[in-house]
């Protein structure tokens, strides 16, 4: 196991439940502050989708002591960079600042954790609602194949399963956001006991501890959050659906329910996706794009989250090629893997790739901070780099074959995205 992946850290919990992780790295005079709230679109309900993502916007609109726009201004003026992102299960907020501005970052993060509501106004909500609707138009509605994933997920998961809707939310729900609902959502989920704070980079340990104590310890804990109880989703039969879109070429998406994040078969399915489509010489790429040349591209993902995972294969047809032709060959290759397995060399190639990309990812202090938080929130311990990599190194070709059989012989959702017919 590579020693450079053994990252030193200290972890402790404040009285209000906020988990704190400190990791020192003095390569540059920078410090990354990374805060995960364990709330994502899976914590929303039908008719009120898009709240977690909305907060990714509202959290930059100022809080009790920070006027609108000043969150961005203060960080940029200090020479920092900042952003946030939303997934099904978590939202992260992060900034990297010169090491002499750590206190500024903690001040800003703590103010919006503890003192957000007094500054949350109808006017700000209406403005960011417009921005989010434009984000949706730009990234989904006016983007070729942009609505594919939400169409797949809403077919794959039943209406009451919280992965049924997209993280950005449905347009008709975004239009209806109400201030009191938004405030209630904030009060419930944006609490110290539902968050994990990582400080990584160049800082003085005792100073950082003291600043964290000063800025975060007086924020009261919120209500305990009971995680909902969901039955493991099951797809009884194949679902075939068609979406007409502003695209030039048809694309097929095949999606199976698969293993959840860090579950027993998650790593085997990651490897399988790499063997099927991770490189030019991967099986599906070689077959469809290189040899037969009936597809423009093919890609696979083991997209795994806290409650469930999905294995997705997507391929775009060359002009004049039918999607059924692609589908036939994709299934013949899946059959081949299920029947004959993969080679030791294919497995090793995929493993080497995972290992080197792990090391490449350590170049950014903000990526290190985010990964520490990921491990802390999902595996209970921050320094799980080597454990994570170990999941891949312990696999045998037999494990990959078994995973393919276990998941890819089940019913699936088939989405065909077709060019809109000309009027």
């Amino acid at each position, binding site marked *: 196991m590579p020693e450079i992946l053994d990252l030193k850290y200290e972890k402790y919990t404040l009285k209000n439940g906020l988990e704190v992780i400190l990791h020192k790295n003095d*390569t*540059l*005079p*920078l410090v990354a502050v990374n805060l995960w709230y364990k709330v994502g679109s899976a914590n929303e309900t039908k008719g009120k989708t898009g709240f977690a993502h909305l907060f990714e916007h509202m959290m930059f609109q100022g809080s009790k*002591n920070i006027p609108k*726009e000043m969150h*961005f*201004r203060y960080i*940029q*003026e*200090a*020479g*920092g*960079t900042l952003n946030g992102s939303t997934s099904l299960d978590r939202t992260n907020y992060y900034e990297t600042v*010169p090491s*002499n*501005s*750590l*206190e*500024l970052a903690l*001040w800003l993060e*703590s103010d919006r954790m503890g003192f957000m509501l007094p500054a949350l106004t109808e006017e700000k909500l*209406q*403005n*960011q609602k*417009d*921005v989010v*609707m*434009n*984000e949706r*138009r*730009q990234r989904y*509605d*006016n983007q*070729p194949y942009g609505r594919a994933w939400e169409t797949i997920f809403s077919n794959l998961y039943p209406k009451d399963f919280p992965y049924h809707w997209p993280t950005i939310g449905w347009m008709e729900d975004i239009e209806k956001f109400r201030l009191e609902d938004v405030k209630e959502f904030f009060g419930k989920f944006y609490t110290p006991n539902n968050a994990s704070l990582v400080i990584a980079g160049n800082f003085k340990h005792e100073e950082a501890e003291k600043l964290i104590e*000063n800025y975060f310890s*007086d924020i009261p804990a919120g209500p305990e959050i009971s995680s909902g109880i969901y039955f493991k989703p099951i797809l009884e039969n194949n679902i075939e659906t068609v979406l007409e879109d*502003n*695209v*030039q*070429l048809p694309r097929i998406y095949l999606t199976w329910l698969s293993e959840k994040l860090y579950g027993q078969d998650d790593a085997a399915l990651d490897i399988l996706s790499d063997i099927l489509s*991770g*490189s*030019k*010489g991967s099986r599906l790429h070689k077959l469809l794009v*290189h040899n037969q040349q009936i597809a*423009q591209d093919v890609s696979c993902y083991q997209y795994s989250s806290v409650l469930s995972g999905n294995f997705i294969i997507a391929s*775009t047809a060359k002009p004049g090629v039918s999607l059924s032709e692609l589908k036939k060959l994709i299934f013949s290759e899946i059959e081949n893997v299920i029947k004959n397995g993969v080679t030791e*060399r294919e497995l*090793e*190639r995929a493993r*080497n*790739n995972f*290992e*080197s*990309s792990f*090391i*490449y990812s350590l*170049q950014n*202090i903000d990526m290190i901070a985010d990964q520490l938080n990921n491990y802390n929130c999902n595996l209970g311990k921050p320094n799980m780099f080597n454990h994570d990599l170990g999941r891949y190194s312990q696999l045998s070709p037999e494990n990959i074959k078994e995973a393919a059989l276990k998941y890819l012989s089940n019913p699936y959702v088939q989405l065909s995205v077709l060019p809109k017919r000309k009027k």
Partner: protein
Amino acid sequence: MPVNRSVKPSEKGTVQFTLPRIEHLQLNNGLKILYVHKDNLPLLQMYLILDSGSKYEPNNYAGLANLTAHMLDEGAGKYTALELDEELEFLGTDLSISVNHDNVFISLLSLENNAEKSLELFSIVVQEPSFSEPDFQREKNKILTKLVQLKSEPSYLASVNFDKVLFGNSAYGNPIYGIDNNIKNFKRTDLTDYYCKYFSPVNAAIMIASSIPQNEIIDMLNKYLGNWQSGKVSPESNLPEMSSSAGLYILHKENAPQSEIRIGHPAEGRKTKDYFAKTVMNSILGGQFTSRINLNLREDKGFTYGAHSAFYYKQDVSYFGVSTAVQTENTAAAVSEIFKELKNITKEITQKELDFAKSSLIKTYPSKFETYSQITGNLAALHIFGLEDNYFENYISNILKINLPEVSAAAKKNIHEEEAAIVIVGDREKIEAALENETGLKAKLLKE
């Protein structure tokens, strides 16, 4: 003890930051190397930069540079395309090729342990590409299909049409990916000719950031690239004749929920004296989230997810451009607001804005040297624009000394709203009348 939250915390002391030391080296065949030693991780990051971008394409060969470059790793030396890929993947090495109007970039990222084997493969790709007929046909077909797909990408269409409007029928006006009717006529020998003419060590330089010590990396490079032979050429590019491109141009997309907007005009090149004043000025106007254009269009009006402006520098041409995507019904209003901002920046800039922009640019500087690829990217800028080595050392003091008269002068000299071209990709039926009304211009229609 609880803190007083109503007061913004101040900075604690000053930050110490040492710029990486740049070494100028040379291989046995004269190939130039810019090297930075960096050893917090065991990595080799390298760019080979060739003066063989699309501006050197002959007339009616738009796309030749891109296709030639992308053929390099589709089979080389004794390896087929798939064998080459297999070798690189097995090492966990990333080799990637990209092309712009000026240059071809071949980049390599490898673990230190695998550096020698990776360099050997890299050298084969650079020196012995096969250009076999079947590989050529497959890749040609792939790029033609890609061009079909791009007809549905609004932001791509807006950007290439903006280039076309600004730089006309010169090579800078052509898309990097090329033009389908040109590409269809390419023969394999067109690519090998282009390769022989422009892919040569006299047209090349290497940028490195690595944990491998200087003498070791030079030995390895001499072994694998030191005998690379030089075709003696001085590249000639196909430069634009500048004429006024002002006007309103629309590319129609039926039922588009948004309009992609590009507004701008040609600008002075990278090495003008007021480069730093321009940089600070654009940071105030549209270079950051909190710049005027984004605050107006996004945070005030809610028209868009984001809007920004920049000076885009190439070796022989440069331009200023504002880009955004707005919901269809606000297209004309958004254009009007952008023009207001272009006019306003030439009238007044406040000391507060200037101080903010300078602070941000100066203090963010150390973070531009964080990753291995950021460092090779910075070295590439030195090489491509012929900047002095002390450019990085002097950057902060150059920004620091910009004063209000200079930044205001930079706005007046470099922002010309009356000369701006407006390119819109959107639903013509819903936006044309309002746009013509707003701008007083007659719309010219662009073809796909």
